């Protein structure tokens, strides 16, 4: 595990708003977390106030403050599949270098929201704006079930995607970052489920995107790989990349994320620093807090 929780000011002290009405804002350290639907500039200013200059994340926050724009901002997203309303006016703003973990029960709309953030689907209502910091407008995206063309090696696969970005891509380095250097020449259909997911993460990182959206990146990974994956996520954030991920691995989420956003019934029911979310319901850890915040049959039936 990295020392993000020690170096990122966003995790030092913040508050949560368990009664949030579908609007979420990055946690602040001045106690002002209840302001509904803040402008992106507020996000940047907040991050800047806490900048220590001691970490890359803090530098990234300062950069955000300078640009006055979040890395990605979703505003009033609403969406329905037929009669089922999966998102009901949610807003989310993520600063460069910030890790936001989206948690919620199965079917709560996490993947749908992440697709909107990755701009591969359009919501019925609302907008998604990419900050385009450093001119990097691409959003790296890891789908929930990443798939690849059979018969191609891991290197072939990333080489293919590298052709769509302007700058040269060191594919070997990308594979090294995600722990697949040893499987560079292995065919993708011969990779394990966990390795396939790591290759999906590598694909999302091609072209050094300013924002990375990861849909359950730790699903199917063994504990060691989970830790490695969250280390990679921390490294990305340290480099100034805004990371939005969904996960059911609440232990690593609690240790790594700067913010946890709980999605249930199409709205955000909590948003804030993991510790603050846990304390807001008097729970011992995020797993227990999740059960208190999300009263689904799946959770209460355990």
């Amino acid at each position: 595990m990295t020392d993000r929780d020690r170096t990122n000011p966003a995790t030092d002290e913040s508050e949560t708003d368990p009664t949030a009405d579908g609007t979420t804002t990055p946690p602040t350290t001045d106690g002002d977390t209840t302001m509904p639907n803040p402008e992106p500039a507020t996000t940047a200013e907040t991050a800047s106030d806490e900048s220590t200059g001691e970490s890359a994340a803090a530098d990234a926050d300062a950069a955000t403050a300078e640009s006055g724009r979040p890395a990605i901002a979703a505003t009033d997203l609403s969406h329905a599949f037929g009669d089922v309303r999966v998102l009901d006016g949610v807003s989310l703003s993520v600063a460069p270098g910030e890790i936001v973990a989206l948690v919620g029960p199965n079917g709560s709309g996490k993947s749908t929201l992440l697709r909107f953030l990755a701009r591969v689907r359009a919501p019925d209502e609302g907008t998604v704006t990419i900050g385009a910091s450093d001119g990097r407008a691409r959003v790296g995206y890891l789908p929930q079930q990443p798939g690849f063309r059979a018969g191609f090696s891991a290197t072939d696969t990333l080489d293919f995607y590298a052709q769509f970005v302007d700058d040269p891509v060191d594919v070997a380095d990308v594979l090294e970052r995600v722990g697949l250097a040893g499987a560079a020449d292995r065919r993708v259909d011969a990779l394990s489920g966990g390795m396939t997911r790591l290759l999906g993460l590598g694909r999302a990182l091609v072209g050094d995107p300013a924002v990375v959206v990861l849909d359950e990146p730790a699903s199917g990974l063994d504990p060691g790989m989970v830790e490695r994956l969250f280390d990679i996520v921390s490294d990305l954030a340290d480099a100034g990349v805004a990371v939005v991920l969904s996960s059911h691995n609440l232990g690593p989420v609690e240790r790594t994320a700067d913010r946890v956003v709980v999605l249930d019934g199409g709205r955000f029911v909590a948003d804030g620093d993991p510790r603050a979310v846990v304390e807001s319901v008097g729970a011992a850890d995020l797993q227990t807090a999740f059960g208190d915040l999300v009263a689904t049959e799946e959770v209460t039936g355990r």
Partner: protein
Amino acid sequence: MSADGRDSLGDLFAIAARELRTVVRTPAVVALSVVFALTVVAVAAAGSGARGGYVPLVLDLAPFVEALVPLLAVALCYRAVLSDRESGELDVLRTFDVSRPAYVGGVYLGRGLALVFVVFGSLLAAGATVPVLSPPDPTFLALNEAADSPVAFLRFSVLAVLFALAVAAVALAVSAAARTARQAIALAVGLLVAFVVGVDAAAVAGLASGNLGIDAVPLVLAASPNGAFRSLVLGVAVETGGSTSPVAALTGLVGWVAVALAVAVLTAWRPVE
């Protein structure tokens, strides 16, 4: 990224190269291609066409090509876009700012090249049997070489390639429009049946009922890739001397390509503003 035309062209070629490699690495497609090639050469070798010359060979091969080329083209293309959608690669490609025309154009180019190689190569192999199997020209007869020449067979081969590309475009449109494999299969089979027998049957029914005049038949036949191909073979490759212009049939084939690719582009994905 794909902000300008130059980069879009680069995206198109990148996708085309991947499609070509995919086709080459797909055993089922390779096996089908080999079966197609063997069938065409076997028809040439076993039939009397090759012994009679190039034009008789064209007449021998035309029905087989009309039936087998659509099968090959559909097999190559009917799941091309759908498989990318099902694997999530279509979504990921969109995050790389690949445009719909570049994506569809790349898939069509890559798979089309493979198709052209198989169809044209097989027909050339079949044509090569003519000099081998034909008896030597009798020395006591004066022969008009224009009546039977390799050029006629070459024209036939080029028309077969056009026909294959038209059906491939339609199959690609099916793969883009279908959301499930079952939909894709149903659509592909339905279109194949319509092309192979549907339009012909409609023309016959129209003639029998008197709703269609004889002059309208070429136009009706041009409405399907199969009918257009047949008209072009008889009018351009074999030169039967009919007064019908090949323009309608050629327009029919090109029209199918244009409309099918437009449908594929529009249905591949819905753009996010």
